């Protein structure tokens, strides 16, 4: 025993250090108190060893990257030698030579790991010629800007997209000096199946991937005297601004945020947490209803827009499982534009709704066609926590000097249940606090549901409800969510309620939040911060929120009422994943009479679209119509639930399974051919 313990030590600059369980020398060094620089290393991703910043000298191995070397007993490591410093500096210079160094106007300036390192290493001169070529910047989507000119090829975005989100939107393309990280065919993020979760932005050490800024739009709104500008602040934001203003991570600063927002010029400051309570009212009612009427179950939460987009693009068979409830952000927007505008006696066009969110995908969600009236959005502008911090700094208001203030009524009143929405497990816990009471008809005393708390990516819970077992699953990260859906598809598990959040740890780990080198620790502290707030709230169940009761009493009447349905619910549609041309399937020259497009996207392909084409071709040949039917393979006609889908001269035909090929040919194609020929 003592021998084994003795063996587990290494020497760092001549001093002996014990190690136990660290995966690599870098982790041992950091535990020993060394501040070893890294750009590509992320403790929650696979090791890549590309940036060469973490080099050290190991006796017998020379200068090596400490992130790729597992610890060995008796290792002799030197951290600060002339060779180490030289190798590190040259690597950094080479990275900087290929980097567009417009730091002063870069959005990432001040938060950029590359900039920090250049400063720390004392880089004053770059001896290598800069890259001549300027590559196109993709800013076509509402959430994320991708600027390959600032990319240092650390691959963190590629790994997080693959390993954490299971998406593979980004990958290394081309080779050598021409290597670029990009989506396939250098398509825009809006043309592929990116969910805008933004985790690539959260791990990018430079400004190559950044959150699209909407700060100017907010200042413009605030500066317009004809507008009333109101703001909603999401639950996870209150525990994420602390570090930026030198408070301990996870501290709840909602009182100060409220005070600062008023000084910035917002007419009213409200809480998305109120809308979260509203979501619970509708979602708990929906859950109780689906339990009673046998489905569709499991009910899946729909607060996370990245998750909703994943289902719409990749799992259309689960669309009806998604809760029809809008997310809290959109419930707030709809209610504010309809009821608040009326309450203030102003036109909805003169009310500007701003939200402060921990999320990049919320920017895209606010622009969905479901959430607007004509050109007018329900939520006009979405800024992230990071953007809020920038605005506060820009304004000159010193957050540390302001006194805490309460939010405005009516939509500032909230419960502990709404607050925990920001953490993975929080939505499920809040929903159960209400749903269990409604289903059983008896008040619940012990409302803490600890089984679903914490930042782990999978949690489950079983509880007895009126004599029957109810199973709940809580997942975060899209990889974990996809894994669960695949299991459900195979019939390997059954749940009644599933909560999904796309970001690790839930919204507290959202890509709109400030990051650090140790995002894991930040997530744990922020999550704890939210549960602490909940613990100290006088009201901790959504349905006991007095302003919620008033809203239902005066306007909505009851959950799922006609008005509630109009304002608080929505629908989902299957969506195409990749924008591309159709594939030509007909041979030779044609007179192109009947245009047949068969979907060969994943969902339709798996249901037999390929065999359908085979039979259809034979049928066409048998009738000698090879020259007058043009068959094309297309990628997704956006009705996956009714697939396989085909389009004949612009007319959609569903359920085109191989068995129906002849019938469809006779019914739809043959008459058209005869007509054209006749």
């Amino acid at each position, binding site marked *: 025993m003592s021998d084994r313990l003795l063996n587990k030590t290494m020497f760092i600059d001549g001093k002996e250090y014990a190690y136990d369980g660290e995966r690599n020398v870098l982790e041992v060094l950091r535990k020993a108190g060394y501040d070893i620089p890294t750009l590509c290393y992320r403790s929650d991703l696979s090791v890549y060893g590309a940036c060469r910043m973490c080099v050290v000298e190991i006796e017998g191995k020379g200068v090596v990257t400490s992130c790729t070397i597992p610890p060995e007993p008796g290792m002799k490591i030197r951290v600060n030698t002339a060779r180490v410093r030289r190798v590190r500096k040259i690597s950094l210079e080479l990275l900087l030579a290929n980097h567009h160094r417009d730091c002063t106007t870069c959005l990432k300036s001040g938060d950029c790991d590359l900039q920090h390192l250049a400063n720390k290493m004392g880089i004053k001169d770059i001896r290598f010629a800069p890259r001549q070529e300027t590559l196109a910047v993709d800013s076509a989507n509402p959430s994320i800007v991708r600027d390959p000119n600032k990319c240092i090829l650390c691959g963190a975005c590629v790994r997080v997209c693959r390993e954490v989100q299971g*998406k*593979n*939107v*980004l*990958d*290394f*393309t*081309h*080779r050598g000096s021409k290597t670029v990280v990009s*989506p*396939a*065919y250098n398509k825009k993020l809006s043309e*592929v199946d990116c969910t805008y979760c933004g985790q690539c932005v959260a791990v990018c050490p430079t400004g190559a991937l950044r959150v699209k800024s909407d700060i100017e739009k907010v200042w413009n709104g605030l500066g317009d005297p004809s507008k009333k500008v109101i703001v909603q602040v999401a639950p996870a934001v209150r525990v994420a601004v602390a570090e930026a203003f030198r408070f301990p991570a996870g501290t709840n600063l909602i009182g100060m945020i409220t005070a600062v927002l008023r000084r910035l010029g917002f007419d009213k400051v409200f809480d998305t947490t109120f809308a979260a309570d509203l979501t619970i009212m509708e979602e708990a009612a929906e859950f109780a209803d689906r339990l009673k009427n046998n489905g569709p179950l499991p009910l899946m939460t729909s607060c996370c827009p990245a998750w909703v987009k994943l289902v719409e693009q990749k799992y259309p068979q689960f669309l009806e499982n998604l809760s029809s409830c809008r997310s809290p952000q959109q419930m707030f927007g709809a209610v504010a534009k309809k009821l608040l505008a009326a309450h203030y006696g102003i036109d909805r066009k003169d009310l500007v709704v701003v939200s402060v969110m921990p999320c990049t995908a919320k920017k895209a969600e606010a622009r969905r066609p479901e959430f607007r009236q004509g050109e007018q959005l329900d939520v006009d502008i979405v800024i992230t926590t990071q953007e809020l911090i920038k605005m506060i700094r820009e304004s000159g208001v010193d957050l540390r000097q302001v006194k805490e203030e309460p939010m405005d009524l009516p939509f500032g009143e909230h419960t502990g249940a709404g607050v925990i929405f920001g953490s993975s497990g929080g939505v499920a816990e809040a929903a159960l606090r209400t749903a269990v009471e409604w289903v059983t008809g008896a008040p619940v005393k012990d409302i803490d549901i600890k089984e679903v708390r914490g930042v782990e990516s999978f949690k489950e819970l079983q509880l007895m409800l009126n004599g029957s077992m109810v199973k709940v699953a809580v997942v975060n990260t899209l990889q974990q969510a996809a894994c669960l859906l695949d299991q459900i598809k195979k019939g390997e598990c059954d749940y009644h309620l599933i909560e999904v959040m796309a970001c690790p740890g839930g919204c507290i780990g959202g890509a709109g939040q400030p990051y650090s080198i140790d995002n894991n620790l930040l997530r744990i502290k922020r999550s704890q911060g939210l549960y602490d707030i909940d613990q100290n709230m006088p009201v901790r169940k959504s349905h006991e929120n007095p302003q919620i009761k008033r809203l239902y009493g005066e306007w909505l009447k009851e959950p799922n009422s006609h008005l509630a349905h109009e304002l608080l619910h929505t629908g989902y549609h299957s969506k195409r994943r*990749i924008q*591309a*041309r*159709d*594939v*030509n*399937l007909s*041979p*030779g020259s044609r007179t192109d009479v009947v245009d047949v497009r068969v979907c*060969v*996207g*994943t969902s339709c*392909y798996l249901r037999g679209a*390929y065999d359908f*084409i*085979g039979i259809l071709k034979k049928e066409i040949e048998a009738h000698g119509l090879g020259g007058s039917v043009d068959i094309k*393979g297309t*990628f997704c006609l956006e009705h996956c639930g009714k697939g396989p889908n085909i389009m004949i001269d612009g007319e959609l035909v569903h359920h085109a399974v191989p068995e129906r090929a002849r019938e469809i040919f006779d019914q739809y194609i043959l008459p058209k051919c005869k007509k054209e020929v006749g």
Partner: protein
Amino acid sequence: MNAVEQGFQRDLERINQIVEKNGNDRTHLIAILQDIQHEFRFLPEEVLIYLSTVMNIPLSSIYGVATFYGQFSLEPKGKFEIKVCDGTACHVRKSGVIIEAIRKKLGLTAGKKTTDDLKFTFETVSCLGACGLAPVVVINEKVYPQVTPEKISQIIDQYKNEEES
């Protein structure tokens, strides 16, 4: 429809056959891409999207492989692929004038490698391993040794005539 689209019949059946022949496994991706390139003379985008569905490999990964290797082309290639060696031995034996002559004859430039009628694609390569025959030109699989600008002009004419007859 342009010449490119008309020139190729993209048949999903053929892609499925290629995948089946090689085995539907991501470790066979390069072999499958080679066969697809052989079939279509390049890797059409729509075909790779379809392949990503059939093989359940992310399109970004397939695209990453396809752009990594010089042997794969994402642009349509001509029926006859002309490769001129511009390695050291061929270069000192004046491959430069041959390159110029071919480009002039076919109306190509360094950026435009394939003729509009999709008959010829012209590329330079770094070494064909036949330095004794310098300067060397290879058309499809056939090797032409000690080429001069006049000779290559005649050779290209032969291919053009062969095509017409």
